[in-house]
């Protein structure tokens, strides 16, 4: 069940890479493990660590103050590829609560919303400007207000964004989607009885 998400003010880290796939975010070899405290090391693992396990100082998300970021300003098609929800768990474990990009992989977008990681879609020019701004002033913060659907950049400029209403409502109140759907159980049963049985199965 997701933590409620209302407003977030956090250091933002720039990640200027298009098409970041979920294999990059969460390498497959860690997915056999249960979701536990080790997840903090899995996020972007092969970009953050050498094969010997040393931290790569040249990777931007390792660099202070970005290593303490709560918001990731990414690029187009963030989270494409595998449906692995573990990619969202890994980002949450690293401390991220929001990702800003011009577009997201569809399944990642849905997985993120269901786990309290807010995907914020903004136009390409806005994302580029935000990424440049936080790269130029390390430690700069971004504020995200889900109630008003407003993202405030480091320079105070406000940018409107939208989140699907149902997901937004669930996030704001920390509601469990399964619980809400089960209140419609009568309709599901009615649907099942109203249609011809499947040809086979």
């Amino acid at each position, binding site marked *: 069940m997701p933590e409620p998400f209302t407003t977030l003010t956090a250091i933002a880290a720039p990640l200027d890479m298009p098409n970041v796939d979920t294999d990059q975010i969460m390498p497959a070899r860690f997915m*056999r493990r249960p979701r536990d405290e080790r997840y903090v090391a899995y996020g972007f693992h092969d970009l953050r660590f050498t094969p010997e396990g040393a931290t790569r100082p040249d990777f931007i998300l390792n660099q202070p103050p970005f290593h303490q970021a709560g918001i990731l300003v990414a690029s187009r098609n963030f989270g494409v590829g595998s449906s692995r929800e573990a990619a969202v768990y890994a980002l949450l474990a690293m401390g991220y609560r929001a990702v800003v990009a011009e577009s997201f992989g569809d399944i990642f977008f849905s997985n993120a919303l269901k786990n309290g990681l807010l995907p914020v879609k903004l136009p390409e020019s806005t994302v580029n400007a935000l990424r440049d701004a936080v790269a130029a002033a390390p430690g700069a913060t971004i504020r995200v207000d889900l109630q008003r659907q407003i993202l405030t950049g480091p320079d105070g400029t406000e940018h409107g964004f939208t989140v699907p209403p*149902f997901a937004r409502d669930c996030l704001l109140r920390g509601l469990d989607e*399964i619980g809400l759907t089960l209140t419609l159980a009568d309709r599901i049963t009615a649907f099942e009885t109203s249609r011809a049985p499947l040809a086979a199965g």
Partner: protein
Amino acid sequence: MGRTLFQKIWDAHVVHARDDGLVLLYIDRHYFHEGSFHAFNMLRARGIPVRRPDLSFGFGDHYVPTNARRTDAVQDPEIRGIIETFEQNARAHRIRAFDLADPDQGIVHVAGPEQGLTLPGMTVVCGDSHTSTHGALGALAFGIGASEVAHVLATQTIWQTQPRQIRANFEGRLPAGSTAKDMALALIARIGTGGGLGGAIEFAGSAVRALSVEGRLTLCNMAIEAGARTGMVAPDAITAAWLKGRPHAPAAPDPAWAALATDADAAFDREVTLDAATITPMATWGTSPEEAVALSARVPRLEEAPDEARARAWKRSLDYMGLQGGEAMADVRVDRVFLGSCTNSRLEDLRAAADVLKGRKIAVPMLVSPGSSATKRQAEAEGLDRIFLEAGARWEESGCSLCVSMNGESVGEGERCASTSNRNFAGRQGRGARTHLVSPASAAASALAGRLMQAGN
């Protein structure tokens, strides 16, 4: 105005529609695999039962070994635990599971259709992005995350907003030697990995109509690599003939199937048309499926990048792949070859590769993992196993294997692999592994040459 194939299936499964456009969609078929353990944990934590265990089917594929069919032969205790958990979850919820010991086990997107469990007009979901594969049978099929799997197990429904509708037309005759895999790579190279974002792609046109169901499964499988939620092909006589006699399929085709095809006056949000006659065998050179060119072409040079952002991405790809840019694809040496995965491991794929290998010896190691245990038996009945073995390849059991490298086997750091799978992402086949996506025939030709190669050269 008429409706599309997608719209007809969507409309028939709406349980409840909200004013904001969100729809509660009924799910006819839910598949799961070992990786779905997170979802079962979520149900357990909340004490919620599985609503329709009769509509879920499990297949052990992601973590299974290809060199043994026994769980106790798995050395790694974490991997063994995942496989055991999968079997326990299925038993606990009285769900039919095709586990390691099952003669019909296989990769979910190969074995599910093969068993006749996916039928035209169905809604199909699975906690795996390549669920789009099932759309080849005229189903609406898409991948979901673990929270959604838990939701489907609990309610047999899923909340969805309607995707935009895209039609990809392949017109004309595909040249001999080119395959559905080459069509998929040509499309993705054209529209990009973001080209299908938020969309459902219907594959149409004379070259798609001419494809076997196996070819259509390959094409729909790769729809997700174009960013689409799903791919689909209208069911026709080829579909009906392919389904006939499969264990879970009806004895005779349902007359309703024919009515699913997109109406002549239906509209799409986007249409893209490719000339199938110009599609030659393709391969990827980079770390995104859109970074693909003809095998007869050269790796692009950085200065050819259309914009600065692309140039930076290409630079990262070339560096990772150990390429300069500008070299002929056919000069790129490979260290090993993988023939398998939900993209290309069906009987037709195995036959195409065996045709190339027959009577020859491979120059680099090659692993062949059939898409299902049933496919393996059929291939062996035709003698394909002997062709692979005599050529020097490993002929093993069915599973996701080196496509996702979760079962303990991986491609080594810096090693270059010609692979019939679907993703050339950095690290996909193992940390530092370099993947070139190709068709089965090209994979076989590459194994013989020790370089990227199309068959017949």
